[in-house]
């Protein structure tokens, strides 16, 4: 930016801040605010300030209640000032509202301003403003209308929106642009706080988008950005409009006053680019519409000004988000190069940020700039350093992880900011655990540093997953032993040193590990470990949680004999502790140390396999564990009384039995808090951490096993995948003379080369998190085509539990069918965007159901006269007949074609069964050649394979999208894949839920997630409430429990057993609906569908 402008502005601060500037004193001598500000500026201590402000507030309070209106505005501004400094002036709130109500123009504006500064959205006084707003909206004075709209778009009570909505809508047609613009912004606010209220005026948003005034159009983009973020599919048709707008803006078609430093409406350009990138993401045809304008934007923005760089940054981000086009990518990459090489530090920062984003798609780019990155790593400015680490984090692979972690730890040592520490510690732990090849001394040392530096701030799941990892071990017993021994070896000196300096969490980890594994070190006497542990108990700063861990470790270690004195002493001290947990532990210690036999039975050595106890019990026929909420629901459904008050006791009873299964207290409490499926995982190794954790991890070996990488992945993960994939060390020559940097570079950027055009263009990535190390579920087959082996691995990446559960199911069902057939077809389903989890399971019945369909041979050929030329038509004509027999009687959705290539045609439909939703995928072989290579002669060409999957929703969303890949191998050896996605509305998963009014009442109180909304009533001849409820019942499969007068109660469940209750009341021409459910988001999604259902009538 130009220095000239900067200089002309240096006069400004004196105006603004009234610092001891000669001019300002003169200017503000008449104003009391000026006096106040000057007074405060001259003060030296906080205490004096407080005194002065309190005095000021008293004075204001006195004057404000006297009916001297001429002073009001001044007083209000002084109150604003006092509040701004942190001193509450609540007495003036009501006066602010009065001022907005009664004042003259400027006073009114200040009144509104004060209200918007003083009150928050839920403040009850805000209700008093509604009438004023109503009045001003109807004013003939445009400036008053303007003010009312401004305050409405800043804050307005949600419940009162219907009162002013018609007036605001009306303003959309106002002749003045400013009124239309502000009306759009007000509607945007309504959309933010109550999206359902403005759903009926979506077409008016479109009108605003097409408004002849660019300002109104700009305002409408806020709404569109928001809506497109939520559901890009619904607005794809607008892409050409956004492109045209951007083209016009870039081409300088806007009036001159929209320019900022000769750049046309830069912030508008940025907004449009953001919208385009959302629309073009994972969508080739939509992306193609925007290539030209993106290219133009890149070219136009070549002027040397900050704001053009800001646009460029957004443009580059967009280019790397949408479906790739090579020459654009090239230009964008060059652009990033200019950024990172810039001597201007702000640009460098932005360049690094862009690079961080981009390397996820194309890790190779980091190679080009490796020397710059290394320089940035040593940059004196911490923020640059920090951003560089962020970049390195994204390009970490098995080969460079040690160097990158080292750099991160270096930064951790100098960082003072807690938030940065927590973030970085989390990242280091994630990296350390991510690369199984590194599970050795390095791993332990790194984790030790993480625990010491991260202290007690870090995420609690870090120590948990570390311990879990250590206890579950890996493939090799010997390796496990070495790792554990190394941990023990590294902890002993720490305890001998100054354990008082170690964070509590670390001490807990140490205690647990020593309790479990110190026996691995043969030269170490248990007595010594015991005394080291006992020392921890005596430390002043040990928390009682740590003490409890220590006591448990001691219980595991004590063998009687020589150790007895230490344990005796400790247990005596703590058996009278006021802390019940400690007392419990002390008693356990006492009894078990005296009774070696009992101890051997309760704590058998080496039985630290995680859920061994559980799996044994399960095998013996015990019922699987269900979490409290699930049990609660089942109880509700079995018409028992609600046992809610007892729910609390559960974790306590769990932890009191913890000693029997040798679990750490935290692990236990964690597992009891997890969802019900957890304990079914026995036998599956390496589930660590909670959902989010697993999703971020990508094992190296598995990447290779996955035959066809699914291209449908969030771009945020692609870089990792690519970098993991490639193992070729970098060979890029660099002219940099410094050998040291060279070395660092080669160690940092190792493994990033190769993969060039593929990763650029294909955006491919191995399946994330498919199977952890032991890869149990690989290649599970089911034969739904007579001679083809189909391996189906069904995954839903965000949830480890689902994932493994599926694999397990598949394992048991189909593993035996793995066979020697020539063609292989593997199909994988995954859910998109991580918003909803569709858990798919392939049931036995599928196989049965499918075979007959297949044996129907040439049905397709027979039906269509020209099958060779028109496979698409075939799909429509005949697929119905391929529906598995047991489903054919049920109503199914229209069979929709999904996608096709030269050899396969995919179609799908869903069938609603009483207790499940079945997704039926039709895989039609449309190629002659492939068929000929299938050995068995009875399946001729153009046959159809049918797969069916039972879907359930883990986390509700308005629409559930199932994404999958069919990968198959031709006998010739070429493997191919076909990806598809299929969308199912949530309503397909809704079933009536039959309950009595009493049960309804009990459940109602126990559900925690709710939403309220007004719906339109149907006014036909019938009684409106009954009519509306019946319509909903019909459309959404709800169960109307009872209708009493003006109220009705309705219940439904989301498959399988997630209830949602609905309470409806007729109120002032609306149907006030209140939904409650134990499932987050379910009420919101359901209300959306209710609204849609009523609208479509």
């Amino acid at each position: 930016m130009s220095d000239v402008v900067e200089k002309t502005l240096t006069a400004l601060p004196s105006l603004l801040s009234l610092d001891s500037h000669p001019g300002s004193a003169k200017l503000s001598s008449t104003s009391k605010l000026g006096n106040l500000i000057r007074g405060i500026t001259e003060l030296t201590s906080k205490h004096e300030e407080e005194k002065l402000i309190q005095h000021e507030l008293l004075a204001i309070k006195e004057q404000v209640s006297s009916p001297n209106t001429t002073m009001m505005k001044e007083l209000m501004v002084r109150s604003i000032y006092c509040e701004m400094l942190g001193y509450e002036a609540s007495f003036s709130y009501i006066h602010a509202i009065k001022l907005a109500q009664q004042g003259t123009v400027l006073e009114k504006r200040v009144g509104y301003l004060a209200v918007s500064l003083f009150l928050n959205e839920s403040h009850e006084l805000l209700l008093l403003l509604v009438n004023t707003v109503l009045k001003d909206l109807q004013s003939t004075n445009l400036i008053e209308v303007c003010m009312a709209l401004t305050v409405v778009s800043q804050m307005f009570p949600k419940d009162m929106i219907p009162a002013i909505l018609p007036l605001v809508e009306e303003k959309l047609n106002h002749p003045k642009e400013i009124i239309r613009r502000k009306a759009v912004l007000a509607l945007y606010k309504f959309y933010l706080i109550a999206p359902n209220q403005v759903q009926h005026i979506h077409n008016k948003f479109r009108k605003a988008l097409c408004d002849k005034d660019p300002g109104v159009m700009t305002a409408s983009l806020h709404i569109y950005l928001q809506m497109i973020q939520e559901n890009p599919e619904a607005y794809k048709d607008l892409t050409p409009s956004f492109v045209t707008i951007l083209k016009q803006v870039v081409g300088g078609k806007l009036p001159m006053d929209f320019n900022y430093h000769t750049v046309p409406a830069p912030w508008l350009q940025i907004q449009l680019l953001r919208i385009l990138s959302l629309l073009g993401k994972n969508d080739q045809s939509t992306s193609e519409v925007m290539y030209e304008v993106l290219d133009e934007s890149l070219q136009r923005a070549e002027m040397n000004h900050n704001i053009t760089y800001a646009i460029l940054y957004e443009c580059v981000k967009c280019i790397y988000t949408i479906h790739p086009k090579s020459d654009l990518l090239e230009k964008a990459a060059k652009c990033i190069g200019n950024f990172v090489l810039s001597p201007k530090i702000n640009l460098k920062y932005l360049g690094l940020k862009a690079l961080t984003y981009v390397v996820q798609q194309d890790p190779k780019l980091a190679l080009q700039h490796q020397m710059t990155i290394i320089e940035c790593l040593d940059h004196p400015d911490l923020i640059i350093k920090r951003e560089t680490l962020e970049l390195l984090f994204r390009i970490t692979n098995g080969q460079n992880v040690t160097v990158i972690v080292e750099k991160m730890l270096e930064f951790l040592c100098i960082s003072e900011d807690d938030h940065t520490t927590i973030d970085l510690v989390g990242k280091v732990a994630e990296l350390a655990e991510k690369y199984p090849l590194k599970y050795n001394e390095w791993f332990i040392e790194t984790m030790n540093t993480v625990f010491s530096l991260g202290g007690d701030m870090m995420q609690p799941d870090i120590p948990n997953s570390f311990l879990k990892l250590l206890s579950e071990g890996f493939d090799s017993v010997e390796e496990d032993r070495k790792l554990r021994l190394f941990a023990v070896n590294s902890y002993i000196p720490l305890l001998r040193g100054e354990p008082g300096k170690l964070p509590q969490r670390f001490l807990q980890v140490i205690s647990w590990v020593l309790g479990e594994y110190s026996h691995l070190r043969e030269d170490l006497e248990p007595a010594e470990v015991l005394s080291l542990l006992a020392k921890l108990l005596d430390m002043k700063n040990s928390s009682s949680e740590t003490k409890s861990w220590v006591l448990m470790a001691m219980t595991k270690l004590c063998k009687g004999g020589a150790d007895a004195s230490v344990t005796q002493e400790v247990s005596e001290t703590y058996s009278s502790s006021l802390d019940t947990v400690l007392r419990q532990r002390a008693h356990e210690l006492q009894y078990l140390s005296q009774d070696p036999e009992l101890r051997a039975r309760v704590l058998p050595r080496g039985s630290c396999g995680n859920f061994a106890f559980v799996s044994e019990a399960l095998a013996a026929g015990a019922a699987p564990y269900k979490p409290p909420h699930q049990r609660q629901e089942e109880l509700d459904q079995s018409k028992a009384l609600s046992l809610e008050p007892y729910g609390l006791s559960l974790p306590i009873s769990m932890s009191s039995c913890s000693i029997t299964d040798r679990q750490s207290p935290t692990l236990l409490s964690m597992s009891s808090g997890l969802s019900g499926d957890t304990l079914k995982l026995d036998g599956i190794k390496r589930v660590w951490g909670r959902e989010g954790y697993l999703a971020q991890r990508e094992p190296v070996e598995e990447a290779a096993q996955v035959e066809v990488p699914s291209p449908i992945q969030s771009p945020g993960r692609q870089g990792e995948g690519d970098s993991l994939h490639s193992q070729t060390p970098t060979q890029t020559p660099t002219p940099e003379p410094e050998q040291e940097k060279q070395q660092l570079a080669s160690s940092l950027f190792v493994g990033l080369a190769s993969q060039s055009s593929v990763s650029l263009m294909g955006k491919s990535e191995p399946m994330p998190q498919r199977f952890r190390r032991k890869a149990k579920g690989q290649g599970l087959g089911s034969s739904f085509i007579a001679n083809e082996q189909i391996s189906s691995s069904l995954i839903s990446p965000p949830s480890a539990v689902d994932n493994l559960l599926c694999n397990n199911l598949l394992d048991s069902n189909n593993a035996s069918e793995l066979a020697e057939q020539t063609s292989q077809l593997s199909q994988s389903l995954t859910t998109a965007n991580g918003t909803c989890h569709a858990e798919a399971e392939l049931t036995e019945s599928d196989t049965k159901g499918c075979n007959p369909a297949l044996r129907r041979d040439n049905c397709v050929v027979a039906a269509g006269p020209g099958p060779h030329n028109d496979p698409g038509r075939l799909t429509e004509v005949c697929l119905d007949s391929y529906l598995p027999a047991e489903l054919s009687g049920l109503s199914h959705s229209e069979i929709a074609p999904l996608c096709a290539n030269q050899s396969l045609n995919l179609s799908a439909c869903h069938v609603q069964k009483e207790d499940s939703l079945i997704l039926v995928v039709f895989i039609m072989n449309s190629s002659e050649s492939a068929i000929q290579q299938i050995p068995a002669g009875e399946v001729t060409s153009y046959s159809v394979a049918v797969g069916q999957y039972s879907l359930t929703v883990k986390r509700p969303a308005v629409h559930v999208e199932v994404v999958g890949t069919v990968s198959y191998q031709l006998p010739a050896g070429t493997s191919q894949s076909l990806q598809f996605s299929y969308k199912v509305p949530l309503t397909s998963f809704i079933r009536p839920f039959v309950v009595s009014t009493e049960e309804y009442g009990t459940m109602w109180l126990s559900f925690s997630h709710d939403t309220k909304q007004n719906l339109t009533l149907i006014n036909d001849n019938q009684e409106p409430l009954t009519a509306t409820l019946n319509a909903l019942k019909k459309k959404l499969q709800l169960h109307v429990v009872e209708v009493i007068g003006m109220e009705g109660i309705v219940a439904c469940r989301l498959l399988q057993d997630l209830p949602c209750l609905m309470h409806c009341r007729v109120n002032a021409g609306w149907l006030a609906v209140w939904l409650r459910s134990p499932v987050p988001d379910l009420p919101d999604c359901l209300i959306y569908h209710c609204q849609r259902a009523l609208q479509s009538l």
Partner: protein
Amino acid sequence: MIKFVLMVNRQGQTRLSRYYHSVELSRRAALEADVVRYCLSRKKDQCSFVEYKDFKLVYRQYAALYIVVGITDSENELSIYELVHNFVEVLDKYFSRIMFNLDRVHIILDEMIQNGHIVETNKSRILAPLTTIDKMVDS
């Protein structure tokens, strides 16, 4: 998204603050003090963007006055940096004839940023409502 806009002097005293997400009154003073400390400690040749807790600060200095904007990570730092300058240019345009008023700066800011989003950047349109009010008051 923009979280807040602050104007502070070199002594660290707040001259103007506007929050676009709810922050309790009692926590504001501490947050502002923290933010100012971060920005004041930085040298001229250092980056104008700072990481602070889970958001970023974009700051710009005009003589003794600092303007600090708190933003989320998804925001474009450089565009905010220039937005600050646009804001200052608007203030310059307006206050060249009228003396400083806390309320008027707020009114101008309200025209530019709402709910944490940039809603207007056209200088004449930003000032239109305010100048109209001024005219009405004068007459």
